[in-house]
C-alpha cells in the first residue's frame, strides 16, 4: 500500500453542503418551536418530495436525522433507549434510533426535529418502512398514509400499467390529505415548476455521476456521493437545491478537466454496494484510501432515485413521473437481480477493477442474500469481490481490526492479480 491516510477529504462542495443543510435543519427547528409551518415525515427510497414542497410542507427524513446522529457518534444511547422499550437487537437500528429520538423529545445536537403533522410512508421496497411508520403513527398520533408501491416483479423488469395507475391514484389521495392538513389547495403551476427543477436536478446529478467514468474519477462515488445525496432529498425541487447541483456540476467538471481525483493517486477503481457504516465513516474510508481505492460507482447513491440510466421527472406529466420514480427508478424497489445488473453496468461502463459489498445488519433489503451476489460476480463475471459486514447505525457492529484485515487482504490479492495477469492496470487519462 502506498497512499497516505490523514488525508483531507472535504472541499468547497462539502462546505456548501454543510451550509445549506444547517439552514435546512434551522427550518426544521423553527417548526419544532412553533412557527406554524407544517412538517411531514417521509422516507428516502423513491421519495415523492415534490408534492410536499408544493404545499410548502418541510420534508423530514428520519433516516437523515438518525444517520446524522451516527456520524456525530451519538446514535447508541437512542438505540439503547428503544431496546429498553422492547425493540430487539435484530431490529433495524435506524428505526430504533428514531424511536429513541422521539422519546428524547426529538432533540439532537444539530436540530430539534418537529413532530410530524402528517406521516407519509412511501413504501418503496423496504418493508421495515411500514413497521417504522406504524410505530410513529402510534407514538405521535399524526395522520398517516401508506403509499403502496408495487415491487418490480415482471419478466420485463418494468412496472405494469395497472401499477402506474394505482400509484397515481394514491398520489391524488395524498394531495387531498395534504390539502386537509395545510388548509390550502394544490397550486398546479407551482407544483409543475417544482417538478421541472427536479428534472433539471436529476439531469445534473446524472451527469455528475457519469463523470466518475473518467480516470481519475473526480470524486469518490460512495463517500463523496453521500455529501450530495442529502440535498438531493431534502432540497430537491427547490431553487437552493438546484443551485447546489449547479455548483457541484461545475466543480466536478473542473476536476475532470484538471485530472484531479479525491486521492493523490487512483490505484484501484471499485464499485461499492450497500449503505455506509455511518458511525465510523472516516475510519472506514481510510481503509480504502490507504490502498488508493476510489469508488467509481455505488448502489447506495441510488436509494432515493436512479437517474444515471436516463430517468427524469416530467413537468408535462408530473404525477405519472413521480409514480415512475417511485416504482422503478430507485434501487430499493427493483429486484435483487436488477441490482446485479446495475452493478454489472457500473463494473463495465465505469471501468471498475473490483466490487466491495458492505453488508449491513440493519438493512435486510440491501443485505439479505449478498453472499449470492458475491457468488455471481466472482463465478459468473470473474470480478474480484469482497464481502464485509458491519452496520449503518449501530456502532457495536463495527469491528475495526477485522474489517481492516479483510480489506487489506483483498487489496493485496488484487495487487497480486494485477501483477500476475496484467489486468486492470491504470490506463492513462
Amino acid at each position, binding site marked *: 500500500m502506498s497512499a497516505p491516510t490523514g488525508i483531507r477529504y472535504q472541499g468547497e462542495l462539502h462546505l456548501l453542503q454543510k451550509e445549506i443543510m444547517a439552514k435546512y435543519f434551522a427550518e426544521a427547528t423553527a417548526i419544532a418551536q412553533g412557527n406554524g409551518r407544517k412538517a411531514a415525515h417521509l422516507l428516502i427510497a423513491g421519495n415523492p418530495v415534490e408534492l410536499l414542497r408544493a404545499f410548502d410542507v418541510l420534508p423530514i427524513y428520519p433516516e437523515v436525522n438518525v444517520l446524522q446522529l451516527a456520524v456525530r457518534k451519538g446514535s447508541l444511547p437512542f438505540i439503547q433507549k*428503544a431496546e429498553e*422499550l*422492547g*425493540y*430487539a437487537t*435484530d*431490529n*433495524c437500528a435506524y*428505526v430504533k434510533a428514531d424511536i429513541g429520538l422521539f422519546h428524547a423529545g426529538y432533540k439532537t445536537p444539530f436540530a430539534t426535529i418537529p413532530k410530524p403533522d402528517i406521516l407519509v410512508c412511501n*413504501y418503496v*421496497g*423496504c*418493508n*421495515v418502512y*411500514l*413497521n417504522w411508520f*406504524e*410505530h410513529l*403513527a*402510534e407514538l405521535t398520533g399524526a395522520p*398517516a*398514509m*401508506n*403509499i*403502496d408501491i*408495487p*415491487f418490480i*416483479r*415482471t419478466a420485463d423488469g418494468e412496472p*405494469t400499467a*395497472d*401499477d402506474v*395507475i*394505482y400509484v397515481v*391514484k*394514491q398520489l391524488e*389521495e395524498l394531495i387531498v390529505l395534504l390539502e386537509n392538513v395545510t388548509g390550502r389547495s394544490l397550486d398546479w403551476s407551482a407544483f409543475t415548476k417544482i417538478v421541472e427543477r427536479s428534472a433539471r436536478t436529476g439531469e445534473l446529478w446524472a451527469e455528475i455521476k457519469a463523470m466518475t467514468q473518467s480516470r481519475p474519477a473526480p470524486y469518490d462515488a460512495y463517500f463523496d456521493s453521500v455529501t450530495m445525496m442529502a440535498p438531493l432529498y431534502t432540497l430537491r425541487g427547490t431553487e437552493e437545491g438546484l443551485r447546489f447541483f449547479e455548483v457541484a456540476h461545475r466543480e466536478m467538471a473542473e476536476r475532470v478537466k484538471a485530472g484531479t481525483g479525491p486521492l493523490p493517486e487512483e490505484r484501484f477503481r471499485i464499485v461499492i454496494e450497500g449503505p455506509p457504516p455511518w458511525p465510523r465513516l472516516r475510519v472506514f474510508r481510510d481503509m480504502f484510501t490507504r490502498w488508493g481505492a476510489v469508488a467509481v460507482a455505488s448502489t447506495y447513491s441510488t436509494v432515493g432515485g436512479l437517474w444515471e440510466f436516463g430517468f427524469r421527472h416530467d413537468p408535462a406529466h408530473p404525477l405519472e413521473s413521480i409514480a415512475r420514480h417511485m416504482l422503478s427508478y430507485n434501487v430499493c424497489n427493483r*429486484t*435483487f*437481480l436488477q441490482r446485479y445488473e446495475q452493478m454489472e453496468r457500473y463494473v463495465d461502463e465505469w471501468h471498475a477493477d473490483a466490487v466491495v459489498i458492505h*453488508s449491513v*445488519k440493519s*438493512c*435486510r*433489503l440491501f*443485505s*439479505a*442474500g*449478498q*453472499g*449470492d451476489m458475491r*457468488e*455471481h460476480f466472482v463465478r459468473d463475471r470473474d470480478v474480484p469481490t469482497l464481502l464485509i*459486514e458491519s452496520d449503518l447505525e449501530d456502532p457495536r457492529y463495527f469491528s475495526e481490526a477485522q474489517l481492516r484485515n479483510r480489506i487489506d487482504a483483498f487489496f493485496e490479492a488484487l495487487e497480486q492479480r494485477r501483477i500476475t495477469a496484467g489486468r486492470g492496470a491504470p490506463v492513462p487519462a
Partner: protein
Amino acid sequence: MTLTLDPAFPSARYRDVIEDRDFPTVRADRERTGRAAIGCYPVYGPLELAHAAGLLPVGLFGGGNRIEIAHADSRFQSFICSVVKSTMELGFQRKLDPFDALMFESICDPARNLASIMSRNFPEQAVVYVHLPQNMTSPATADYLTAEYRRVLASLSAVTGKTVSDDDLRASLQAYNRMRAALRDLYAFRDERPQDLATGELYTLARLATLMDPLDVTPILHEALDAARARGGRMKDRIRVVLVGSFCEQPPLELIESIEESGCYMVDDDFLLGWRLFRRDVPTDGDPCRALAVAYLDDSVHLSTKHDLRAPRAKAIVDAVREHRADAAICLIAKFCEPGLFDYALYRKAFEAEAIPHLYLEFEEKMWLYEKIRTEVETFVESMLFR
C-alpha cells in the same frame, strides 16, 4: 398418555408426513393426478388461483429441523432468519424437484430477495411473485389487487398451459372456503374444549392442509373434529394462552407440544395463518379475482405482514386475549424475524397497558432442544397459577 400422542386420533397418521421434506403428499398427488405443483412460501398467497390453474399449491415452510444447512449459509448472512436459508437449502439438496413453480409474496425484505435468488439458482422452477398491497384505505386498492391477481393467474396458467375460466376459479374458491371453514371449526372447538384437542394435533392437521388439495384434506379435518368431539377429557389445571408471532417460520412440532404441556392450553395462535386468513367464506358470486382481493383487504384477520392503518395489530391481539378468555399471551417469535420483532414492541406496550401477563420467547425452526423454553413456560405458568 398425553393427548398429542393418542395414536387413534387422525392427526397421528400425519405426524411424519408434515415433517417429511421429500413431500410425500405432493409425489402421491402427482402420481394420482399427473398435475404440477407449486411451492408457496409463507405467509399468504392467493392459493385459489394456483389451484384453478391446475396446480397443487403446497406450503413451503423451509427445512424444519430435519435439514442440515450446508450451502445456503454462504448465500445468506448469519442475521437472516432460518426459513429463508433452509428454503434455499431445499433447492440445493434437490428437495424442490417435485415443484414446477414457486410463489413468493411481498412479506418482508429477505423473502423478497430470496425470490430473486431462487430464480437465479433454480431456473427450472418458475418464480411467481405477488405484490400484496399495503394501502388498505385507498379506494384504488381493490382494483389494483384484482388486476394483480389477474396478472398472477396468467403467470400460473403459463406454467400449466391451462386456460382458467371464472367457473374454475369459483370452484377453487369454494374448495378453499370449505377447507378454511373446517379449520375454523377445529379452532373454535379447541377454544371451547382445549382438553379434547391438543395444539400439537390441531397444528398437524392445519399443516397437512398446507400440503394437500383442499378437496382431499377437508374430509380428514371433518373426521378429526368428529373424533375430538367424541372425546371426554378432563380439564387440567392449566392457564389459557393466546400465542402470537409464529406466522411465517414454523416452530418444531415438539416445541409447540412442549409449550402446551408445560402448563397451558393454547386457545388461539397464528401458526400457518395464510391458510386460514379469512374470517368467513370468500363470496363465490361475481368476479372471483375481485372477491379474493376484497377478502384480503376487508375480511382477513390481523397479520404481521399486513399493515392496516385502520386496525392496529396490538389491539387485535388484546381483543383476541379477551375474546378467547385467555389468562395470558405468549409471543413466540422466530429469531431474526423483523416483522415479528417489530410487532412485539407494540404488543408489549399494549399488554402492559391492559395488564395482560405475557411471555416472550424466541425460536428457530432448526432447534431441537426445548428444555430452556419448557422451564421458562413452566415458571411463567406457575407465577400465574400461584400468584
